């Protein structure tokens, strides 16, 4: 435990704490992980139900799924996909902290890597999705 990046407790400000999960990146990544996890969970419950409508009738499914195609929902979907991307990437970071011998030492670097990869993925997704949402086409 001597080679972790955090300084000894005696040299730290109280606000920094002496642990991985108190203050700064370690804490905020955990807060975001928890909030995104809950949001995705409730979406998943709804999403299984709306998909189950394929078993009711083609019309029932199409009518309900059409509500996902309006601009307000389209913007909501950006938030949802952004949340999933963060939860997935930060989940991999948590796994590395737990299993990689240098994981704790690099947890802060890995947090900013998560943010960086998230920005790249989101920049790839958002314009494409907004183009689809605001296009005249569709069924």
């Amino acid at each position: 435990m001597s080679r972790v990046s955090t300084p000894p407790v005696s040299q730290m400000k109280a606000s920094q704490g002496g642990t991985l999960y108190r203050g700064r990146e370690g804490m905020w990544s955990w807060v975001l992980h928890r909030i995104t996890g809950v949001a995705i969970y409730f979406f998943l419950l709804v999403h299984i139900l709306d998909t189950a409508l394929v078993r009711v009738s083609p019309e029932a499914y199409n009518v309900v799924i059409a509500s996902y195609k309006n601009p307000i929902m389209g913007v909501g979907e950006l938030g949802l996909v952004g949340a999933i991307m963060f939860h997935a990437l930060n989940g991999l970071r948590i796994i590395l902290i737990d299993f990689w011998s240098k994981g704790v030492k690099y947890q802060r670097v890995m947090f900013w890597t998560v943010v960086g990869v998230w920005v790249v993925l989101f920049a790839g997704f958002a314009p494409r999705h907004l183009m689809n949402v605001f296009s005249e086409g569709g069924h």
Partner: protein
Amino acid sequence: MSTIAAPRTPAPQKRRGVNWEKWGWIYMRVSGVVLVVLIFGHLFVNLMVGEGIKAIDFAFVAGKLSNPFWQWWDTLMLWLALIHGANGMRTIVNDYVVSKAWGRTLRGAIAFAAVALIVLGTLVIFTFDPCPVVPPEQASLLPSFCTA
């Protein structure tokens, strides 16, 4: 900052039986790695390819779910994600809910929702008919391969 003298807690009693909390912890990590692949693939195929969300309708889903590859992809994703999400919600309930009765009620509701939706979702995937008998005005909603 004050430090608490070690040892902070007495040595834990050895417990018998399966350590379910440990297996839950391992499950969150193993399912997480697999879910990254399944969910990113799911989002890419459904939202990035072609017209993305505008192309999603009954015929689109029928095309996917008449293919065993997507049937198994979706089944695995359904089971892994719902159990992962339910177990995560259980952790959160354990963290914040003080009342014993409320905790038990909420954990029961989470477990019930997980079982019910896994059964529903799995039945939908494997009993799905891509070319159901429909009234004539809905015939145009079927995938093109149904008329062949």
